[in-house]
Structures are given as structure tokens and as C-alpha cells.
């Protein structure tokens, strides 16, 4: 009996191994059909109707989806918006590798587009007519979604950087709002000296912020050409950034508070954090997250690295893309086009989204919008100006999501121990190179 049991167990184990093996071995073929899809094909699909599943956390899409359904009553939009950031990408990557439950439309941030396009996870939208929309968008976002002739998504919003500052704090201690990063360091010293509880900014190590700062400083650490990548944090731009930021770290002028935490919202509200350099999508978050500080904050152009230089950078922003394994592509494209290029843009801008389309950015209505939260300031003028001055040639890694996840393991050391920021960046570079090689990229040294 005993021998029989163990034999049976062994059999079951073997069988389950085989069964699981069989399911895991499913082949994958990239469904790349490059036939042009005409506008009438799309119209016909809209008349016929169907449903489109959209994974996106952008809050303004809710109204857009409702409007779209009203306009095309036969089309049903299933908006799934519970997941954002890392959780969203994990779910998306899992669905793609399982070839099951892949959404028809997915929100993909600019830094992650190349990761999915490279592995043929996204549909090229050029055959649907997306290539003709290039001139509608500002260059930064368009560069992020296009690659040669291929277009992997339509830009939804953008994040040209600006310096948000707490005017009340600056006025109280009679410190001038910095226009260069050297003045910024001075202001940091003055403010912290006047009140040891006040810090010029919070920074406890944030990959998105650091890469945007490098971008503005003229550093181009990532060079990507297909599957060949180069990672180098030792150029002149990177040095400019690390030299300046090291001073702020060494003199303990940065509040060690992570973004999007309770402490962060409190710090923005009670004057602990005096400035915040981030994307132009921030105002809506101020209104909802820091309602108590209404009237205290203002927007200003990003401090320059050399006086008079207007170079800016992007921070955040995302596109809507069509996963290659999604269904109802004509309908999906129609929705994306409506939301990010058609009537949906106006709807979203009215709700506080920051557009990536030049027409909206340049319109007087947009530029003369007064922000109650910023004491009636016409902040969009500053943001639009920043958008026009975003430095070009920046690219993210095709595995930026992973690289960002290990940022604090490496660069983070500079914030909590004696490690120099430049050495931290070097460690980040090494770890990213290692991963790139493991993933089959050709990494140039």
C-alpha cells in the first residue's frame, strides 16, 4: 500500500508538471498586420459597434468615455482605472505574456513606451492614420511615442516642468524666488537658516525627478538604437546636476520626505517644503491634495543652469496605446483619437489635464485661465512656455521601469549615507547595464 501511494503521488506530480509545462509552452507570434486602415473602415466599425476595454488611471477619461458612448451609441467603453503606475504595468506585462485578458487600449507613460514597443507589445498606429497627426503635438511627447515611421500611441498629456513655490514662505523670510540653480542653493541656505524647519524642497531619491533634472541640465545618459543601448552618467550635464545637488544634500537642505506620502502633503501644506520642481500636471493635485494651502503657492519657470537659458524638460505624462494582442482595433483607435486628438482634448483640459496638443497650449482661452489656487495667476502661460522649450534628444531606456525600481537601491544611498551622488549614479548605471545584458540588449560601454 505504501509503495503504491508514493508511486501514485509521483504520477500526479509528473502529470501536473507536464500539464503545466504544456500550457506554459504556448508559442507567441506577433500579430503585426501592416495593412492601412482607412477612415471609412473606422467609421464602418463605429456604426457596427462593439466594446473597447481601456486600462487607464487618467481621471478625466471618465467623462470622455461617456461622451464617446453618447456619440457612438453602439460602442461600449469599459474603463478600468483602479490600477496605476507599477501595478498597472505589472498587470499589463502579465496579460501580454499570458496572451490573455489584454486590454484593447492601455495608458502607457512616455518612459515606458519603448519597453513595450520594442517587444512588439504595441500596435503601430501609423496605418490607422496616426502618422498624420504629428504636427498636432508638441515635440517632446511626440518623440516619446514615435520611432522612425512607427507611432505607438497618441500623447494624452504632458509634463513640461515648472517651479512651484510657496510665496508666503518666500515673502515671510524676504528671499527672492530663484531663477538659476545657483540662486536656488542660496535660497535653500537662507530659508533653512531663517527657520530650521523650512526646506527648499523634499527629495529622498526619486528616479523620475532625477532623470528630468538631468534632462534639463543637458545630460543625455541613455542612448537607444533598437536593441543597442548606452548608459553613461558621466557627461558634463550630469556633472552640473550632481555638483549642485550634492551641496543641497551635504548641507541637509532637502527634506527627507518621499513624494505622494502623507508627510509630503503635510509638508506642502504647512510651509516645510518651500518649492517643488515638477510637471505642469501638478496644479490639480495641489487643489485636491493640499487644499489648506490655497493662495500660498505660485508657479515660476524652472531655474536655469546658466542665467537666461530657457531649456526645460518633461516630467511624467502619458499616452494611450493599443496593445498588439488587443481586439477591436478600429474601435480602439477611434476612441484614442477622439480622446487625445479630437473633442476629448477640450473636455480633459477643462477638467485640469495638461494637454500635449499645440492648438490647446497656444489658445488664448487656455493661456489666460486664472488659477484660483495660485491666487489668480495665469500659470498656463508659464507651462506653455516651458513646453515650447523642452530640450530635445532625450530618450529613456527600453527597460526604464526596471531601472527606476532600483534607483533607491543605488542612488538612494547618496541621500542617507556618505556615498556621493555621482557615485550613486555610477552604481545605478552599472546595475542597469547588468540588467540590460541579462535581457539580451547590446550594451555599449
Amino acid at each position: 500500500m505504501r509503495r503504491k501511494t508514493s508511486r501514485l503521488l509521483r504520477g500526479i506530480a509528473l502529470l501536473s508538471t507536464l500539464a503545466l509545462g504544456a500550457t506554459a509552452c504556448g508559442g507567441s507570434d506577433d500579430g503585426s498586420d501592416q495593412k492601412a486602415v482607412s477612415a471609412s473602415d473606422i467609421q464602418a466599425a463605429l456604426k457596427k459597434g462593439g466594446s473597447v476595454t481601456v486600462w487607464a488611471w487618467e481621471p478625466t477619461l471618465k467623462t470622455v468615455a461617456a461622451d464617446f458612448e453618447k456619440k457612438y451609441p453602439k460602442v461600449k467603453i469599459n474603463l478600468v482605472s483602479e490600477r496605476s503606475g507599477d501595478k498597472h504595468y505589472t498587470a499589463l506585462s502579465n496579460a501580454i505574456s499570458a496572451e490573455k485578458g489584454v486590454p484593447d487600449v492601455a495608458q502607457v507613460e512616455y518612459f515606458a513606451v519603448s519597453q513595450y514597443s520594442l517587444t512588439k507589445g504595441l500596435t503601430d498606429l501609423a496605418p490607422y492614420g496616426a502618422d498624420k497627426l504629428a504636427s498636432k503635438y508638441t515635440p517632446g511627447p511626440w518623440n516619446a511615442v514615435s520611432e522612425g515611421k512607427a507611432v505607438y500611441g497618441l500623447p494624452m498629456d504632458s509634463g513640461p516642468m515648472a517651479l512651484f513655490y510657496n510665496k508666503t514662505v518666500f515673502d515671510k523670510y524676504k528671499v527672492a524666488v530663484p531663477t538659476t540653480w545657483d540662486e536656488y542653493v542660496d535660497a535653500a541656505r537662507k530659508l533653512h537658516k531663517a527657520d530650521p524647519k523650512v526646506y527648499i524642497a523634499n527629495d529622498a531619491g526619486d528616479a523620475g525627478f532625477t532623470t528630468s533634472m538631468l534632462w534639463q541640465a543637458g545630460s543625455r545618459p541613455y542612448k537607444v538604437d533598437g536593441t543597442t543601448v548606452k548608459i553613461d552618467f558621466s557627461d558634463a550635464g550630469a556633472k552640473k546636476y550632481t555638483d549642485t545637488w550634492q551641496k543641497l544634500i551635504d548641507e541637509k537642505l532637502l527634506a527627507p520626505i518621499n513624494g505622494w506620502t502623507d508627510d509630503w502633503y503635510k509638508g506642502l501644506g504647512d510651509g516645510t517644503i518651500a518649492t517643488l520642481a515638477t510637471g505642469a500636471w501638478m496644479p490639480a493635485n495641489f487643489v485636491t491634495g493640499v487644499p489648506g494651502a490655497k493662495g500660498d503657492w505660485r508657479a515660476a519657470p524652472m531655474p536655469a543652469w546658466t542665467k537666461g537659458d530657457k531649456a526645460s524638460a518633461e516630467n511624467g505624462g502619458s499616452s494611450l496605446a493599443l496593445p498588439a494582442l488587443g481586439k477591436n482595433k478600429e474601435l480602439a483607435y477611434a476612441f484614442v483619437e477622439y480622446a487625445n486628438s479630437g473633442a476629448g482634448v477640450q473636455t480633459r483640459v477643462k477638467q485640469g489635464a495638461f494637454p500635449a496638443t499645440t492648438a490647446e497650449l497656444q489658445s488664448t482661452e487656455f493661456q489666460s485661465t486664472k488659477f484660483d489656487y495660485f491666487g489668480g495667476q495665469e500659470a498656463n502661460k508659464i507651462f506653455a512656455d516651458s513646453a515650447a522649450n523642452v530640450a530635445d534628444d532625450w530618450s529613456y531606456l527600453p527597460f526604464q521601469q526596471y531601472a527606476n525600481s532600483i534607483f533607491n537601491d543605488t542612488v538612494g544611498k547618496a541621500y542617507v549615507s556618505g556615498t556621493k551622488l555621482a557615485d550613486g549614479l555610477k552604481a545605478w548605471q552599472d546595475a542597469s547595464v547588468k540588467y540590460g545584458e541579462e535581457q539580451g540588449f547590446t550594451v555599449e560601454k
Partner: protein
Amino acid sequence: MTTLQPPAAAEPRPAPPPARRDRRSWTGWGFIGPFVAVFALVFLAPIAYSIYLSLFRDQLIGGTTFVGVDNYTQALKDDQFWAALGRVSLFLAVQVPIMLGIALLVALVLDSGRLYGKSFFRITIFLPYAVPAVVATLMWGFMYGTKYGLVGDINEAFGVSLPDPLSPDLVLASIGNIVTWEFVGYNMLIFYSALRVIPHSLYEAAEIDGAGQIRVITAIKLPAIRGALVIATIFSIIGSFQLFNEPNILRPLARNAITTDYTPNYYTYSLSFNGQQHNYSATVAIIMGVITMVIAYVVQLRGMRKGA
């Protein structure tokens, strides 16, 4: 024997004994079948699948290839993995003795019968175990805060400057503190219930022999609950090696101190969910499982041998 010849040997019988034996064996399977099915589904199949996964490598460029034991050789040379293992081993060596020591002391005090409000103490010390680990960690994370948390408030109220519990040097101790707080009550209850079943006649005999409390503890109580001590130790070893919840939940507050390879479990989690390296992650998980099993088994053998 020979007298028991069947009277009508000419008539062939349709072999009832084999049929009966069959039925008996199927009845047995009927009883253990549900267990075997569930066991295979939730235990054997995932392990088999992990082993299967660990033999492949999936790359962003190049797709999935069979690599044999390459993942294993890579893992055995992986500094990040060994550093993580070293960290939980240190945790094990320091935190587990402290936790079990406190639990044992409390159990002995409760059992001594010299304490007023015994059931009150028993329930309050056990209570933290009833708090879910996630909630407990969030709560402690808030208290550890040097800006707006309890530590910050103490600093402000008394004009002192306590070290940051979430700094890289202290965060492991801070996690140990949370785990101790959570599990002292649980271990205390194991020890306490083992102490309760010791026959009182032994104590009376000891008293007649003139043994004091200390002597009673070392000569009667501790040897009697050795089994419980071994079990609690094994649970704690497994718990330490599987440390995940606390670092995972504290991480948003201390990203620079708690790295993505902080504990072996957290490392496998990061490999899988951030790096999409499911195959390598499965390999590390299997190696970690084997190490845990070996150590727990050695402790059990040693513990039991002393008992014999």
C-alpha cells in the same frame, strides 16, 4: 488444510476475492482522495511549476530559452541573494532569541501563579498577534516617523534628537522590534499551554525535596516544554527567512534604507514584479526553500535528540 477442499471444484468461481480487494483499496483512496487532490493542486503543482520555470530564461530580446541549471549557478554566485540571506540570518540570530526569551519569561511568570490579573496580562500580551501584520507595520511606521510621527513628537517635546529608526543602520532593528511586538504573545501562548499540562504532583514532589522556584523551572518546567520550544524555534526560523510584509510595507517610508533585495523573499518579489525575471525569481525561491527546510530540519533533529 487439506480437509478444506472445496466440494464442487468443477465449478469455476468468478474470482470474488480480487474484486473484494479492489473495492477495499478504492475505499481507502476515497478517504484520502480529496486530500491528495488538494495537496497536489496547491502544494505539489506550484512547486513542480516553479522547478519547471527555473530551467528557462525569458529575455526582453530573444524570448524564452531552455537554460538547464544556469539559473542555479547564477543564483549561487549572486551577491544580492547572499547579502539578503545574510541579513535575515542576522535577524534570526538576534531577534528570535530575544523574542522567544521574552515569550518564555512571560509564560513562566503567568504560570507561576504569583501574578494578580493573570488573564488580563495574558490577553493584552497576546493581543498584538490579533492585529494583522500589515496594520501593525503601518502603525509602527507612523510611530517611527521623525517628521510627523511619534519619534518626531518626542524629539520636539523633550528637545532631544533620537536617531531615525528608519535609517539604513537601524531599520533592521526597527523591523525586529515590530516582529517581536507581534509574535511575543503568540509564542507565549504556545509555551504557556505547554506549561499548563505539566502534572502538579511533580511540583509538590519537588517542594518536598526542597527545590526552589528556579530549580523547579530548570529541572521540571523547561525539560517538559522542550517540544514546544523546538516548535516555536522552527516557526520563528521559517518566519525570519520569509520576512517580507514588514519591509514591503515600510519601504515607501524608507526607500533608501530598504532595498529591493532586502530579504530573500523581497528579492524574489522584485525580480518577478519589477524585472519580469520570473524564471530567475523561481530559482531563488527554490534555493531559499531548500535552505529553510535544511535548517529547520537540523534544528528539529537536534532539539529532539536532546529530548531523547
